[in-house]
Each structure stands twice: as structure tokens, then as C-alpha cells.
């Protein structure tokens, strides 16, 4: 292919980041091209067959509210739906679903192929076209050149991927796929710094060889909740997962193979995640544990493969076989694929702006594992933001930058640009200091406005959300005002195991008691609640129960917002002798774009912020040029 093609936006990679980026760009009206090494790899799940989970479920809801595809895709192709953490409070409820991997991929391919302005090209990108520090397109293997105004890199674990099983190491992007080598080197030659990370995956076994009767069944929820605000309900039949455990024999087998483990023989130099250790790591680090939990998860309705969640490993094949067969239910298991570890290049994200655009090369965006994150959901969230911001920058509009109190996606990006990536970054609910504000039930209230502004969702979606909020408001007013007689109150209170009252009470007061649920007061307060669906009732209940806490977190968030609204211009010099040495080094390294971000860099103290403020003020009063604030984030 030697002719020159022109697009407005080129997305390199067809994984979860690439799909969202390409769809968002095309849906915003840009001529978009997705370049992938293999079309058959679009929206594949190389690791666990599940979408969502703790904090990740919230991210999927946010991607949906931003007009993304992930939630719709899993709603249609999920085979088991569960709402995790129901007992821990509504802010940490997290939807999770097992996916049918094949169907998940197929549906996403259909969506991508039918998107009018989106084309897909099967090719390997080996370089970025750059014109005076701005991306001008990509170069594919064989010398073809594709011109584009913006380029989004969503390469996953492919850059210089090196896979390990036991004492074998071989280049690869994932199971059965070649790595992408030229591109990482090309980026390095453009002055973009690289780092090395590691991740891993467990073996898969054949379904017919597993004895599920020896395991504990884990069914889905009876009333599955959809991920998407646009999905009415989940109708498909659900399948179960199964729980089993390792035992002493498993651990002995693992120990016997450690001398051939690439983790312990020093073959692997990349840093792996602490939250997702291999089984050999768990056995070595926690020798006192007599067993570890394992989830057996089907990879699809028709798939013969079972994913052994909890047994991630890079031990030699014979050791993998030996250890798997010590596990109850897996005694006769036939391994279809072996577990492996993979090392890959990433590009430390302090080199990008919060818009995900490279600081070094204008018009070049990074999303997903190339930024050092892990997880399909983390990738999707960055993908959609990269797509949106690339599109907006073509139109010379300001990028969408989410605050930490606005969404997990905001926390994610902010962490990426203010923290050192020491291990693959995963979203945790505890990373969000305003967690009570970032609920899965209000993702639309927080983010829908951006989707509508970018024309990713029709205005009707916004109106439906407003209407929903009005209904909840009306009900909130009524249950706060109308009183229930003491006798009826006490019947409700008794039912919930709460202390009785003497006087009539408003339903809201009753609902503030932790053990009283909205369904309990529904009997006495049917009227106001009638027009609310299940989700809206939860939203109302949360609002009433959490009033004080939510107010407190909101106040805190607003206070921090002040610093986030103070920009630091591009060329600001930290060569100020009053700054502490540590602060000066860190600030130079991260070059935060607001004082808020500066405040979150470890080693930067309040006094350093005060000093920066003084000099910012001096610049302002000097009438110094404000810097290219619009071009960046």
C-alpha cells in the first residue's frame, strides 16, 4: 500500500481503548480510521472474561454516560450479572458481568463496521509521521503513509511485548500474536520516554474436563441490573461461575517449580501489579495461608474454555499442569492454553496533558495500557476521553477535563499525570477521596452533559435524565414533608429492628435510620414513590440517608476545586530558590497544569504552592503572555 490516505483522526489499536476512541471520534463527525494488526482482535479480552467490578463498574457507567459503547456491549453479550457490594452502601455498589468473549467481540465489530464515518484497516503501524513537533499521520509496515490531523495510540501490551512461560521467553503481544516493535522505538526516537511493566494471565481449561460438582456454585443476580442507562433490562439467560480453592499440595507443587519461574530467576524485569499477583507470588509472600480462592469462569455460552481466576502464573507448563490438577474439581482438567506473564513498554503518563495529548508531540494522544494502566474499563475510559479531546481539538474547542469529584475517570487521569507509575495502575474506590459523590447510580447526572455537548448522545437522553431527577426531587420533597402517624411509624421501625418513636414522623426521618429501607416506607408512603422505578428509589434513598455525608464531601470537593481552577502557564519556571529542592525537582518532572495538580504531587507542600502563587501573580501583573493555554489542557 503506497498511496497516501487522509483521515481526520487515526486510532492505532482495536482494543477497549481503541474501540471507544474510534467510535467517539466518528460519532462526533470526524473521518476516522482504526488501524489494527488483526481485525479479529477487535474488542478481545485477553485476560479475565468479565467487565466491571469494584470501581471498574463505576467506570463503565461513566463511559456509558459519556456516550461510549462498552456498557451497551456487555449488556447484550453478558452471561452473568451481579451487583457487588450491596451491603456496603450505594456509593460502592459496583456492577460486574461475565462476558461471552466471542459475542462481545462480534457485537463490537458489528457496531464499528456499521459506524458511518469509521473505517478499519488491517496493518501494523511502525511509526508516527511528525511535522515540526506535531503528529501528521502514521506509517504502516511496507512503507504506506496515512495522513491524519490527530493520532490516538491505544496499543495495549503490544509495544515490545515479551512473553514468559517458565524458562521460555518469546516476543508476543498476547497469546498467539506477534508484538509491535517498530512503533515503540520510533516513539523513543521522538523523545518520548519509555518504561517497562509486567502483567500475567492464568491457564484456561476445557469445560468438559472440569468436575463442577466439587465446587461451590456462584449464580448471577435474580434481577440483573444493566450497565447502560440506555438498556431497559437484561433478558438473556444467566450462567453460573464456580468457586474452588488451592491447597497444600498445590502450594508444594508451586514451590517445587520456583527455580524455573521467570519471576524468581530474574528473567522478568518489568514491575507487576501488587493487587493482582501470580499464584507463585501469593504462595511465597503469604506462606501461612493454607489455601487461596479460585473462580472458574466460563469464557462464553458456547465456549469450551474455562478461565481459572486466581491462578495467574508464568511457571513452566509441567508445573502449571501439576498444580492445576491438585485443585478440587480440576483433577482431570485438560489445559487449553497455558498461563503466561508478559512484559511490555509503556510511556510514563507524566508526558501527557490531562487531555491525554502528548506534551512532546502535538496532536498525538495516548490511551490505555500505553499510559501504564491495566484493565479493560480503565482503557475504555481513557479511550473515550482521547477520542473526544482529539475531536474537540480539531474544532479548536477546549478539552473535556473531568475533576476528581466528577468521576472515577477524572480521578484516573489526574492520578496518571500527578503520580509515578510504579506498577500497572488499577482503579480502586479508595483512590477516590470523594467516593460518596461518585456513585454508579448518578454517573449520568455527573457526565451526561459532556456527551450531549459533544453530540455523542441525543438531547433526548439529557431530557430523560432531567425528568428523572425531577421525579426524584418531587418525591424527596413529599417524603420530607408528609408525616406518618406514630403507630404506622412504629410498625415500620419495628420491622427494621429500630427504636420506636412517640410522635408522628416524616418518612424521610424514618429513612435516615440505617436499617430502614425505601421499600419499608413504601407501604405507608406509596403515593410519592409510585412514579419512581427501582433505580430512582435507590437514588432517593441514598440522597436521604447520606445527606450529611454528601454535604461534607461536597464542601471538601469545592474547597479543593479552587486550586484546580488556577492554571500554571506552559513555560512557567520553577527556578525559584525559595522552593524546596524536592518540590522543584518534582514540579519540573510533572509540570502540572494547575495548582490543584501541583498540590497532589508528592513532595510538594502547601508552602511551595504559596510561593508559586506569588510568582504567578507577579507574571500576571507584569502582563507576561499567558502561554498557550488553549492548546493544552
Amino acid at each position, binding site marked *: 500500500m503506497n498511496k497516501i490516505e487522509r483521515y481526520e483522526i487515526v486510532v492505532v489499536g482495536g482494543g477497549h481503548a481503541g474501540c471507544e476512541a474510534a467510535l467517539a471520534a466518528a460519532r462526533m463527525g470526524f473521518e476516522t480510521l482504526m488501524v489494527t494488526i488483526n481485525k479479529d482482535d477487535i474488542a478481545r479480552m485477553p485476560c*479475565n472474561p468479565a467487565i466491571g467490578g*469494584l*470501581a471498574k463498574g463505576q467506570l463503565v457507567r461513566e463511559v456509558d454516560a459519556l456516550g461510549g459503547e462498552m456498557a451497551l456491549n456487555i449488556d447484550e453479550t453478558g452471561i452473568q450479572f451481579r451487583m*457487588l*457490594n450491596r*451491603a*456496603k*452502601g450505594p*456509593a*460502592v455498589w459496583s456492577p460486574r458481568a461475565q462476558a461471552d468473549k466471542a459475542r462481545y467481540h462480534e457485537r463490537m465489530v458489528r457496531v464499528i463496521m456499521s459506524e458511518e464515518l469509521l473505517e478499519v484497516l488491517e496493518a501494523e503501524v511502525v511509526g508516527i509521521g511528525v511535522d515540526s513537533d506535531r503528529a501528521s499521520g502514521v506509517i504502516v509496515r511496507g512503507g504506506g503513509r496515512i495522513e491524519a490531523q490527530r493520532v490516538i495510540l491505544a496499543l495495549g501490551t503490544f509495544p515490545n511485548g515479551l512473553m514468559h512461560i517458565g524458562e521460555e521467553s518469546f516476543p508476543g503481544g498476547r497469546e498467539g500474536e506477534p508484538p509491535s516493535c517498530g512503533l515503540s522505538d520510533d516513539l523513543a526516537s521522538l523523545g518520548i520516554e519509555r518504561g517497562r511493566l509486567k502483567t500475567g494471565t492464568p491457564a484456561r481449561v476445557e469445560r468438559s474436563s472440569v468436575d463442577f460438582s466439587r465446587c461451590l456454585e456462584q449464580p448471577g443476580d435474580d434481577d440483573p441490573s444493566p450497565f447502560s442507562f440506555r438498556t431497559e433490562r437484561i433478558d438473556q439467560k444467566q450462567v453460573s461461575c464456580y468457586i474452588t480453592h488451592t491447597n497444600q499440595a498445590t502450594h508444594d507443587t508451586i514451590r517445587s517449580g520456583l527455580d524455573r519461574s521467570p519471576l524468581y530467576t530474574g528473567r522478568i524485569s518489568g514491575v507487576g*501489579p*501488587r*493487587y*493482582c*499477583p501470580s499464584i507463585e507470588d*501469593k504462595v511465597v*509472600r*503469604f506462606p501461612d*495461608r493454607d489455601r*487461596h*480462592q479460585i*473462580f472458574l469462569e466460563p469464557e462464553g455460552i458456547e465456549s469450551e474454555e474455562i478461565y481459572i*481466576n*486466581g491462578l*495467574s502464573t508464568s511457571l513452566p507448563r509441567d508445573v502449571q499442569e501439576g498444580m492445576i490438577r491438585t485443585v478440587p474439581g480440576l483433577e482431570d482438567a485438560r489445559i487449553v492454553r497455558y498461563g503466561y506473564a508478559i512484559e511490555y513498554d509503556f510511556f510514563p503518563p507524566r508526558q501527557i496533558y490531562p487531555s491525554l495529548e502528548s506534551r512532546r508531540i502535538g496532536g498525538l494522544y495516548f490511551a490505555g495500557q500505553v499510559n501504564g494502566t491495566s484493565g479493560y474499563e480503565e482503557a475504555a475510559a481513557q479511550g473515550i476521553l482521547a477520542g473526544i479531546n482529539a475531536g474537540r481539538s480539531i474544532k479548536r474547542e477546549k478539552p473535556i477535563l473531568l475533576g476528581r469529584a466528577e468521576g472515577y475517570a477524572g480521578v484516573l487521569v489526574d492520578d496518571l499525570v500527578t503520580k509515578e507509575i510504579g506498577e500497572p495502575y488499577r482503579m*480502586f*474506590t*479508595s*483512590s477516590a*477521596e470523594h*467516593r*460518596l459523590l461518585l456513585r454508579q447510580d448518578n454517573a449520568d447526572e455527573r457526565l451526561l452533559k459532556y456527551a450531549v455537548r459533544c453530540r455523542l448522545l441525543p438531547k433526548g437522553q439529557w431530557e430523560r435524565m432531567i425528568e428523572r431527577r425531577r421525579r426524584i426531587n418531587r418525591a424527596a420533597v413529599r417524603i420530607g414533608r408528609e408525616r406518618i402517624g406514630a403507630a404506622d411509624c412504629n410498625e415500620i421501625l419495628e420491622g427494621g429492628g429500630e427504636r420506636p418513636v412517640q410522635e408522628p414522623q416524616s418518612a424521610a426521618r424514618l429513612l435516615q*435510620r*440505617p*436499617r430502614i429501607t425505601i421499600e419499608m416506607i413504601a407501604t405507608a408512603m406509596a403515593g410519592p414513590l409510585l412514579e419512581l422505578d427501582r433505580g430512582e428509589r435507590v437514588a432517593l434513598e441514598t440522597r436521604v440517608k*447520606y445527606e450529611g*455525608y454528601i454535604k*461534607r*464531601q461536597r464542601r471538601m470537593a469545592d*474547597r479543593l476545586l*479552587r486550586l484546580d481552577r488556577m492554571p500554571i502557564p506552559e513555560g512557567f519556571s520553577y527556578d*525559584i*530558590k*525559595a*522552593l*524546596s529542592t524536592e518540590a522543584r525537582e518534582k514540579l519540573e518532572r510533572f509540570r502540572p497544569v494547575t495548582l490543584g495538580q501541583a498540590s497532589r504531587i*508528592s513532595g510538594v*507542600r*502547601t*508552602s511551595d504552592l*504559596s*510561593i508559586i*502563587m*506569588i*510568582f504567578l*501573580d*507577579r507574571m500576571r*501583573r*507584569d502582563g507576561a503572555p499567558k502561554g498557550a493555554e488553549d492548546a493544552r489542557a
Partner: protein
Amino acid sequence: MEGETIVALSTPPGESGIAVIRISGARAQETLDGLTGRKTRESHRIYHERLVDEEGRIIDEALVVMMKAPNSYTGEDVVEISCHGGLQVVSEILEAAMRLGVMPAAPGEFTRRAFMSGKLDLAQAEAVADLIASETKLQRQVAIEHLEGGLSKSVREIEERILEHLALVELSIDFTEEELPTYDTNEMTASAEGLVEKLETVLKTDVAGLKLRHGMRITILGARNTGKSSLYNALIGEERAIVSPVPGTTRDLLRERIHIEGFTYYLEDTAGIAETGCEIEARGISIGRRAARGADIVLFVIDGSLEPEESVLDELGRIGGAETLCVLNKKDLGLSLDEEAAAKRLGVERVVAVSALEGTGLNGLRRWIHETSVSGSAADVGRERIAVNARQAEALREVSEGLERFIASAREGAPAELLSADLRSAAESCGLVTGRSVTDDLLDTIFSRFCIGK
């Protein structure tokens, strides 16, 4: 105009002098109204008011003036309260203001605001930045010194316990599907109650104790038999230390309160420094050196009748950040070098020659102490110490409130995410005292202690 309204003591701390407390920001007037229980005042007029705490108890009578923006030092609404200089009184007014929602001023904050509102010219930016940096250094030094005395162990223990509880609660939220230890609400509530009690004790004893010590500390240091105890007695005006020609008589630390020009000082006499084989005496010497490191002012006593030895210079170099004055004692025996020559030899700006025995030269010494304490870095340290104390007391009260909320929530059977919110706010308030960051530490604690990961 900035969000927070700030408060600080702006005069040097002294026992019976007048102290000026300054408040700046949008809520300055509101805070003054809260402190006096009275509304509406004209700008730039002085009023005589009674200041009350939140229970309506009278703290002090004071002269107050309210200066409306922009005609004030910072360009914001500013309130100045001239109260009695007693440290107890100053601390109480600061604390009362903080309870009305005013924040303690950050280092250099008043000056920074003056700059930002255009009250200082551009050329002064570097100077303001340097001021912030030096005050920050001072504040950290004082805060660390605070923590090294008594307070630290208790607060760190409390913080450790809260973080343990928080880690367990967070574990149950973020790693819900794994087989991990769960938390026992009853156990945690009981533990939290214990912590609240402990905090009360800390606030009553440690913090109050620190407050009492708030007069400036003057430590007398020097080689054996240079006449330190004689100087000590001469300054306090009574025979308190054992004075004898036998070297090494003062083995422990002696402390007495003295007044100079209306300011209070704690004068400390230490064991004479010497090479010694006696363990008790060696301990006394190390107590003395430590006292000097924590002091505001050090009087370094030298036997002026003898030629200063090399070891004297070494010892002088070991004294930390305190303002130090070299005192040439035994003037009555005839000085081997005059004041100027001695200063040159010792490499210091000035020395004062006295005779503790005859009581000559003491007035010059007192004058120097007074000047140093109302202007130099010793004054800054004293002021900072009061601020740090008020700030830490307030932070500890917030820890207590967070724990109380946690106990109430836990009793009511609140879900994990609310328990976590309460514990987190308590831990964050602890962090204001110990400097630890909850978010950074939390995941590290979880990953290092529990086997995570499916």
C-alpha cells in the same frame, strides 16, 4: 479575595505584654462578632470588648479594630485584637477563632495576601517567597520539636490504630470477593472509644503541658566550673542551684521562671560539659545539650579569666538553631581577652562580660535577652510554637469528632462506606499533626498486609 479566613498571633509572645492577634479574610468580621457576641462596628475604629469562648465564658478583655477591605494590610477585611499577652489567653483566643471556622495562617500567609492584593510591589516577590520558605522551615522545626516531646508517641499510636481499622473497612469494600479478614464492628467501636478517651488525656495533659511551657526557654550551657550556676542564681535572684567550687556539681536540669521587661522565660541550668567517666554526670551533660538544642536562647558561659580552649569552639558549633550569646563570666578575676578580642576569637558577633558573683554586667545581659526575644528568630519560634499548639489541639479535636461520628454510625449499623468516611476524616486530621498522607498510605498498608488478587 481568597476562600479561607486566617488567624495568627502577630506580636512576640510574652507573659504580661500586649499581644496582637490578626484575622484576615471575608469572614473576619463574622469571626469578631462570634468572639464578642456583638454585631456591627465601624471600620477603622477601636472598640473595647469582652471576648468569649463558645460556651460564653469570658476569655479576656481586649481592644479590637476592624479594617474593611481594601484599606488594610492584606487588602482583605482585617480584624486586629489587642489582648493581654498571657500565653494561655492568646492560645484560647486562637482556638476560639478556629472553632468559628477560621484557619490558622500558613507561613507567610498575611504577607502573601498583601502581595496578591497588590499592596506590595512586584520587586518584593522574591522576598515574600523567601519569607514563606523560612517560616515554613521554622514551623516544621517547631512541629517536630513538639512531636518529640510527649505528644508524638500517643498521636502516632492513635493514628496507627485508626489506619488499621480503616484498612480493614476499605479491604471489605475494594476486595469484596476475596477471602480476607472482615472487621468486627463491636471490636472497632470499643477500640474507637478507647482512642477518644486517650485523645482527651492527650489534649488535657500533653497539649496543655506544652502550652504551659510556652514562655521562651533560655538554657545556660558551658564547660565545667565556668560559673553557670552562679549566673543562674544571679538571674533568678535567689540561691537555687548548688553553687560550689567543686566542678560538676549541677548534674540535672534546673528550671526556674524569670521575668524580664514583662516577658516570661524559663531559665535552665545544665551540667558542666567535660570529659567524664561518671555515668550519671555524662547523662546530665547529654540532658543539658539536648535542652540547648530545644531552647530559644542559649547563654554560652565561658570563664573569661582563662584563654578559651579549642573544645569551647567545638561546643559552640554544636548548639542548634537557638539564638546564642557568649557570656564571659568571672570579669571580677580579670579578663584574659577583652570583649572585642574574645568575640573575634570565638567567631561571634558580640559577647557580654559579666561577673555573676558581683552581679555586674547583668543588666546588659538582660537587655540583650529582651531585644532578642522581641525581634530575632527567637520571637518567631515563640509565636510559631503557640500557633502550632493551637493548630495541633484543633486537629486532635477533629480526630476525636471523626471517631465519635464513627462510633455513632457503627452503632446504628451504617454501611462500610460511611464507616470508612468517618475513619478517613479522623485519620486525615491525625495526618495534620504527624504529616502522614492517608490516601498514599492506605493501599500500601493493604497490599503489604493482606493477600490480594484474584
